[in-house]
């Protein structure tokens, strides 16, 4: 099934992707952000906060945004 996946970390990504039916939010996170910790991310489905075991549906809009981001002084 197809969902809209938005990854707001690193280089960023926003596109429709194919996922297997029955995929949970946690499974998607682990697959797409294997080195990240879910507690450092704001994860929403269809703009709403969700539980880790929520099963994704066709057409869902899933966004994952880091809540702690390193700012930096611009190079001189």
């Amino acid at each position, binding site marked *: 099934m197809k969902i809209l996946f*938005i990854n*707001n*970390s*690193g*280089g*960023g990504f*926003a596109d429709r992707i194919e996922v297997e039916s029955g995929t949970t939010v946690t499974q998607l996170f682990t697959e797409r952000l294997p080195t990240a910790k879910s507690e450092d991310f*704001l994860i929403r489905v269809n*703009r709403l906060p969700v539980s880790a075991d929520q099963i994704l549906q066709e057409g869902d809009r899933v*966004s994952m*945004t*880091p*809540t*702690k*981001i*390193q*700012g*930096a*002084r*611009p190079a001189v």
Partner: protein
Amino acid sequence: MQPVKLLLRAASKLRDAMHQAAHQDGFHDFLSGLEHCQRALREARRRVDMARQLRLTSVMTDLQTTVVTCVRDLYDSAADAARNLARPTPPAPSLRFLLEELRQIEADFGSLTIDWQAKAISAATEPITLKDVYLGPFEIRFFWERLTRTMDDFCFDVVALDPHPPDASEDVTHPHVKRSKLCPGAAKKPLGDALEQGRLADAYTLVLGVLVTYNASSPHVALEEWAGARCHDCQCPLPDDDRSFCEACSRDYCQDCASFCWSCDGLRCTHCLELCQVCQRGSCQSCLALTQASRRRCCTECRRICVDCEAVFARDEQKHGSSLCPACRSVSPPAPSDPGAAEPMSDTLPDPTSEEDLHATSLDSDTTSPRAA
């Protein structure tokens, strides 16, 4: 909460700005880049032709290399322009989408205000404290007209609502905010992508993510220095031109809490100075040495080196005229001119004699020796 009518109006303004930005000057920029490369190539060719006419063979190779470089640059620029100009312009997000974005910002931040005159949408954060330094709440302001110039962090101002700038700079209200401009760091790329796609709520979340995180490797002002430099000892404020740096512990002190090493003149804090146990003056630990006989730590002025065994002893253990340590003096023979004296009294050492003579000197003076008997 903002009435739907006002949110719709704001969403409409946003959509217009995004639509205008999408049809903006990527076209102009790419063609300008191409023209610049063409001019550079023409100039490089002109130089080659002139060098050929003047028969300047020594520079010909370099000039031809420049021409080749210009040709490559032109090729790359043309390929880049062709690729980007052919890309379809993405449609601006729908009104409904942008309305949902504004509602989400309002839900995430608790409120949202629209400044029609400034053409800005604002949301305020909770008070922020980083590493026990209170920075206060900030207002994240998004100026939608700036989208027509660029789709990145430039569209945002981050304004301190209860500023607590560091002593060093009033312009800095947060380690990563100076003159209301955010240094997005790792958020720059995802922030730009979010704005290009109209995901304004994600952009606000990313800005907040930077504000609640301290990057110690690259702040405008480090949090450790937020309250200004202070004397490490008494904590009094230290102006830039009134700091004493202790080279032993590498910390700053005021003039009252710092002094100089009596031995080496190095600047030290009072904690890094130790009193010489002879003269009671302060020296740094590396300038003090332990005397072997009396086990006292002495400065360079107060210690002596035995000329015989090279042991360190204190100057108050030195007998007038002797350069021997107490241990060596105790085993050295008395001077011949004064056999009863325990210590030599002259300023100079006695003339060296053979061991036999010494033995003989000590036996002649001993009435209980076997020979005497």
